[in-house]
């Protein structure tokens, strides 16, 4: 990813945040993200994000589990080692249901969680820039990207008018990197240090 410049504004209340998001979008600024301490319902729609397809992925994983279980058990009982168990049929569908169900759930759940972590880049030792330490506590942090077409000062006064507080400009890595959270080691800072040395 890349190092970018951002204008950051803090909001105290989601009731102020919603109109501000709307204003930013109509004004045409590039809304990088809004960080909230809890899921704010409808904020994704206000920001114009598309619906997530995670459900569909979950369905596909589930179906995979169903077919895996059914085909594996049938293969074992009919093809690989057709054992006569008390004269019972080799394809006892009712007896296969419990395991089939469990594997459906298992595949869907594990698959979805992995997909979720992959899509959101979540993993131990993954680091991302935190724009404000209280974005996971009680503040709603709106981050607007400063492109070559944006006037940072104008964005600042715009945010102030929309009700934001503690407005500041930050230069930060927009993506993720591997690192320890007790160390201040944004990749671009590392680069600066090596060129200075």
């Amino acid at each position: 990813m890349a190092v970018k410049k951002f204008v950051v504004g803090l909001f105290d209340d989601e009731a102020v945040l919603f109109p501000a998001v709307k204003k930013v979008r109509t004004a045409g600024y590039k809304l990088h993200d809004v960080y909230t301490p809890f899921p704010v319902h409808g904020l994704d729609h206000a920001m114009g994000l598309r619906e997530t397809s995670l459900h569909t992925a979950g369905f596909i994983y589930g179906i995979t589990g169903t077919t895996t279980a059914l085909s594996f058990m049938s293969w074992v009982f009919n093809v690989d080692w057709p054992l006569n168990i008390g004269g019972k049929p080799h394809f006892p569908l009712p007896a296969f249901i419990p395991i089939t169900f469990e594997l459906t759930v298992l595949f869907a759940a594990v698959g979805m969680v992995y997909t979720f972590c992959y899509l959101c880049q979540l993993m131990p030792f993954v680091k991302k820039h935190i724009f404000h330490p209280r974005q996971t506590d009680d503040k709603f942090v709106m981050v607007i990207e400063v492109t070559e077409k944006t006037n940072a000062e104008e964005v600042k006064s715009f945010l102030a008018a929309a009700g934001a507080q503690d407005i500041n400009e930050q230069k930060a890595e927009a993506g993720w990197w591997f690192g320890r959270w007790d160390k201040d080691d944004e990749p671009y800072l590392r680069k600066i240090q090596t060129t200075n040395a």
Partner: protein
Amino acid sequence: MHLKYESTLREPLVDGVKDYHQVTEDIISPIEGKPGTLWYVGFFISLALLGFGAFSVFWQIYFGVGVWNLNKTIGWGWDITNFVWWVGIGHAGTLISAILLLFRQGWRTGVNRAAEAMTIFAVMCAGQFPIIHMGRVWMAFFILPYPNTRGPVWVNFNSPLLWDVFAISTYFTVSLLFWYSGLLPDFASVRDRAKTKLRKLLYGIAAFGWTGSTKHWQRHEALSLVLAGLATPLVLSVHTIVSFDFATSVIPGWHTTIFPPYFVAGAIFSGFAMVQTLLIITRKILKLEEYITLGHMEAMNKVIVLTGSVVGCAYLTELFMAWYGANPYEFATFFKYRAAGPLGWSYWIMMTCNVITPQVFWFRKMRRSVAVTFVMSIIVNIGMWFERFVIICTSLYRDYLPSSWSYYRPSWPEVGFYMGTFGLFFTCYFLFAKYFPVIALAEIKSILKTSGENFKEKMVVYEEESAEKFAHDVAHAH
């Protein structure tokens, strides 16, 4: 006629006038401080129990399964009783977090985190019993269908014991994923306010780099909802499959179709009782009375009296069918050797604890009394332990061949093993209560505006105005 607008909100779910930051302070500050003396005392007692349990298990593995008092007639005793008991306890967590999420029950947010943790620890305890019961535990992997050099001879997919392997391991995995995905944002809250380097490092690892991005929250919500949808039938299936261990056999007293719903109701019954036991202590020690309110306890007590009555109906149905079914073996099991006979006392302990005493919860005063709830929660779990003991042992100790009739009492390694699982359970719970956010922070914050006491106060104005004025204002809202 004078109608009044009634707020849909009956009782605040969070007491006290709080803002978001106050919630964070209340829930995270116990993690940042030093644990109290009580915590250390409890933790070391649990560790001692765990140590004794480990010794008992070592003894059993070293000398073989013969150190247990099981015999040819009674092949399942305390071990399987304890297995079913712990699995049952493990049901409340997922029920609270999944089924109540689907039913949009706001009160779940105060108790779901601790209940899910309890589920995971209870399933960890449960899983050990069947494995240690195998005797040669180093062969435990034989239960997995893997390509082997014995043919390959596969496992028997028709066997309910194998279904159990799949059910319990799936249940554990899914509960763990559900719990941990909910914990990610809360770990991030701890990380971002951490003052010490070590805490920043450890919670940084645990939070997986969560930032609270809106897109991530959107996916997180979708994930929670689908996991809840998956966990709901799962939680019902797990105890259904546990009941199949008995119901698919031809032993009188086990061979009944009533078992799956009866076991599931019993599981929820005992699970909620255990949640009450733990939360009453937790809210007291961590001073969380404003988050885990009397309202929460009352709601859970209602579930307890409902499921307790379902279980009571099942007991009576069993007795009725034992007589009406006109099967002499079935009749003998229930009326000669279960409700009477050498082990009859256990049946009456079960009846008293599970059916009679929970009826106090029909009274609102009792439902909202902390002391009554605490005592009842323990009585219910004693009763539910005896239910499993009764089902297993009273069906086995008088079998088809009178010459093999026997009696059963546990040996010390069996008791020690059971105590050891208590040690494990409480060791895990103490660590959880100290180092994890015991209440789902983000979820509490998301209901604070609609269900907090501050909001309730604002609603008083609307409640006092007439219905006509309220309807008028709504119709002409600008």
